[in-house]
């Protein structure tokens, strides 16, 4: 069983499992949206004293903090106990492309050591990339009112036009950076 679960999970298993997370959260009277946690955390850290956007009773959102706490533990369990060390089935073209950029662990590691390795993340260029990227993950998701879970899955599942526009935006920004910025950064 553990061996079975330790393989790479195919998309046709993972996608429906994510939909079950959506179902469970809707059915318990909540919503499936992970970026809301960033707002809740800002509020819990006291940002409500400066800006009304964070001035709400964040304890009502405790359930969502429990979900990301659980997701953190889930990440630990999966990395610790459900990993068989087999290479990731990336497209060989992707691997070759990334290796040409000097990312040599493409296909063998879960995250590129050149970006997230303990010896590399403090490099000013890499640090800038992580900080700048992280800032826009937080800023953009709140501006758009959701991220992949809130728009691409929950919003589109509920046939929301705004979510479709948001997902188009995800790809405008993502494709631009991936094709025109990353080749210079990596």
């Amino acid at each position, binding site marked *: 069983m553990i061996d079975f679960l330790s393989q790479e999970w195919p998309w046709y298993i993972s996608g429906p499992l994510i939909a*079950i997370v959506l179902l469970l959260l809707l059915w318990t009277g909540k919503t499936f949206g992970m970026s809301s946690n960033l707002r809740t955390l800002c509020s819990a850290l006291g940002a409500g004293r400066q800006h009304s956007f964070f001035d709400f009773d964040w304890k009502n959102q405790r359930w969502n903090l429990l979900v990301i706490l659980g997701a953190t*533990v889930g990440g630990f369990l999966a990395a610790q106990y459900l990993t068989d060390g087999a290479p990731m089935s990336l*497209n060989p073209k992707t691997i070759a492309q990334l290796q040409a950029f000097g990312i040599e662990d493409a296909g063998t590691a879960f995250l590129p050591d050149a970006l997230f390795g303990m010896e590399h993340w403090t490099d000013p260029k890499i640090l800038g990339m992580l900080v700048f990227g992280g800032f826009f993950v937080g800023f953009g998701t709140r501006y758009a009112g959701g991220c992949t879970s809130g728009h691409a899955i929950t919003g589109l599942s509920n046939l929301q036009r*705004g979510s479709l*526009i948001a997902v188009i*935006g995800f790809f405008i920004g993502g494709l631009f950076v991936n094709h025109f910025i990353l080749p210079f950064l990596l």
Partner: protein
Amino acid sequence: MIRTIVFFGIGIFFGITLFKSEAASWFRIYEMFQFQSFHMYGIIGSALLFGMLFTFLLKRLNAKSLLDGKPLVIPDKDKSWKRYLYGGTLFGIGWALTGACPGPLFVLLGAGFIPVLVVIAAALIGTYAYGALRSKLPH
């Protein structure tokens, strides 16, 4: 207590799924934006297909909350388009750079990638900046 276990449990299930599906991997996001694999499109697409079915059924059957029996409210998004296009595009920039959206950030932290804390801290600052500038931005 029951609630704590339920939501914590849903989170664990979600975290394991994001890790094992590799949706939390920077490599998979890079590959997705290069259109070099169906993997990420398959995950999001099949989640969406089943999500539509589940959402439709919950609404159609007037399902009540499993926890307190109250009617379910599935909120609609605003009717505008600016916030979605502008906000979505900015998030896309961050997604392609860091290879992570808000859920996977926490999964990666749990998986032991400590430098992800930098991304989480920056995302909190970004969220705060939005809260501070909100009234000046087009929605």
